[in-house]
């Protein structure tokens, strides 16, 4: 047996990570899940290039403009609009579609509608003009689906980020300290798990105005229990391993042991539950939008599209399918990714489907 020098160990850790990556992308499930995740991220980031009421590139009165590209930069950042469109495209009353001459050069997005743009076609069926039809205010459903992707991506990732922070902190502390700390935290976890998710989310949401940020925070605040339980188990197991004991005997502090030594090695099982958690968060967002506690109206989300479809079930049945299919595919791919991750970590579980 070779001696484990620092460099050796480092490379071993690297191999484990590489094989995780390869394991995920090596399986069909992992590739499908990961592929759809990348697709969703792409649609989120480049949404305005797919659906906007202003052209991607155009020539207007002898000058070149790139309004949709500016939108990509503008709206994808979370902060204020620090990058303005050049005049006249930044004016709200400027209607690019009627202002631009037909013979002037312009590349339009695939779907030439803004997600909030109200046209005269109220509740129109799918046609060449509106690929997926239009809703009760004459807004193009395809454009709303594309811009609704942002909510699903952001809600899933941000809320799980919050959940990971809470879950790892509490679970890690419980597993690492043991004793009465463990007892108290375990009871807290048990208590939170006692409540149906929607009971809890609704009770918290009555405190706040509905908005996407609040929805993300609330989902994060209620979805950390599984992560806490996993990290508690992992911390309990790892804290007795040789390398942790040797670190402690060298006088490394508790915090450093917890976050520098144990946490990196307990991340993979946590990653699995995050992946499933993102799927659940997408669903919860859809449910909340359905109950009217989700993303407020002008902003599109798949859940609010589903709700508006339900309200016009008899007049506009074609509205139902796009959000259903999108939610289904998103949840399916997150689940597939989670399973691929789990298989890559623990080959024994591969015998499950």
């Amino acid at each position, binding site marked *: 047996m070779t001696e484990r020098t620092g460099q050796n160990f480092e490379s071993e850790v690297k191999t484990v990570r590489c094989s995780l990556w390869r394991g995920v992308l090596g399986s069909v499930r992992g590739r499908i899940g990961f592929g759809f995740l990348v697709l969703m991220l792409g649609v989120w980031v480049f949404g305005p290039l797919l659906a906007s009421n202003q052209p991607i590139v155009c020539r207007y009165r002898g000058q070149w403009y790139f309004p949709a590209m500016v939108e990509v930069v503008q709206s994808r950042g979370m902060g204020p609009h620090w990058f303005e469109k050049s005049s006249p495209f930044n004016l709200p009353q400027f209607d690019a579609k009627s202002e631009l001459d037909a013979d002037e050069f312009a590349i339009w997005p695939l779907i030439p509608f803004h997600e909030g743009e109200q046209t005269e076609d109220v509740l129109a069926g799918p046609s060449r003009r509106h690929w997926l039809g239009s809703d009760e205010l004459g807004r193009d459903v395809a454009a709303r689906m594309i811009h609704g992707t942002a909510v699903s991506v952001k809600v899933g990732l941000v809320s799980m980020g919050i959940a990971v922070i809470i879950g790892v902190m509490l679970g890690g502390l419980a597993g690492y300290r043991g004793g009465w700390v463990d007892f108290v935290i375990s*009871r807290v976890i*048990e*208590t939170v*798990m*006692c*409540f*149906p*998710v*929607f*009971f809890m989310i*609704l*009770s918290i949401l*009555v*405190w706040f105005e509905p908005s996407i940020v609040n929805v993300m925070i609330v989902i994060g605040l209620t979805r950390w229990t599984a992560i806490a339980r996993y990290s508690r188990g992992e911390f309990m197991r790892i804290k007795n391993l040789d390398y942790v004991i040797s670190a402690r005997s060298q006088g490394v502090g508790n915090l450093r042991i917890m976050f520098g030594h144990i946490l990196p090695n307990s991340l993979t099982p946590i990653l699995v539950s995050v992946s499933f958690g993102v*799927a659940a968060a997408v*669903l919860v967002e*859809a*449910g909340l939008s*359905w*109950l009217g506690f989700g993303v407020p109206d002008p902003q599109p989300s798949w859940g609010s599209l*589903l709700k508006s*479809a*339900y309200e016009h*079930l*008899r007049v506009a*049945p074609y509205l*139902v*399918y796009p959000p*259903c299919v999108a*939610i*289904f595919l998103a*949840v*399916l791919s997150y*689940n597939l990714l989670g399973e691929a991750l789990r298989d890559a970590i623990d080959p024994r579980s591969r*015998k*499950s*489907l």
Partner: protein
Amino acid sequence: MLRYLFKRLLVAGITLWGISLVTFVFINLAPGDPAEYQTGNVMGGEVSPGAYRELREYYGLDQSVLVRYGRWVGRLVRLDFGKSMAGDGRPVMDKIAERIWPTMSVALLALVLGLAVSIPVGIYAAVWRDGWFDVVSGGLLYALYSVPGYVMAVPLILIVGVKWDLLPFQGMVSDNYELLSGWGQWVDVFRHYVLITFCFGYGAMAYYCRFVRQNMLEVLGEDYVRTARAKGLSEFGVVVRHAFGNTLIPLMTLMGMLLPSVIGGSIILEVMFNWPGMGRLFFESMLARDYPTIMALSFITAVLVLAGNLLADLSYAAVDPRVRYD
């Protein structure tokens, strides 16, 4: 065993107390109160501040939260959840009693349905592993599992309820329920149950199927199964009695864990189907800030979940004689 039970009950009692205190304070401090809701919504917002103050006094909302919590606990030990603050002033227990059956019956039906489908399917898929049935059912169930009931419900309602006009999807009974004959009333109620039960239960069913199959695969490779075969037992006896019997424990844990979602996971479905169940009651009480009803519902849920966990733990001992609690 008794000592274990006692310890568990003690911890559960403390947990319950903690839950009730936190929930009470949390709900009562939330912005808005029943008096505001009623004066604002019911009377069109044109009431004098005096009426609002009187209503607050009537409900005892002018006292501090902790005093109110003390009173609530005082009533609780006499098993009295107080009167609703939603304007009708009915005892909360009555309100819940009439809502509990619609929810529980759907949950039970869904559970029975789920087990009835998943156990044979799971066993069959495990025995003929990687056969066509296993592959097809596996893929199908996985897809089903990924759509939650309330997303699936919308296209189902559209196709079965609206397009084909086959089944009703609003409420528990039709408008002309009173006029129907005795048999007709049964049929009517049954028809209302079909869609909501399916939407409520198919996700769990898909999950049970995968679960049974996976556990069966593990067990089928064990030595005692080979021994049973070697003894010349019939294949049916080996699979069902020797193998499946040993997958019951994980199945029970699973059910214990799924209990909270059974009780409260139905808010959206109940609102969607206009079903007079507990989930919708919770939603309505939340909107009206009906504190006593919210508290009663949360408390009962917590009791049921804790009891479910305990029962699941105890039933291990019943199923597996090796499990003992000391």
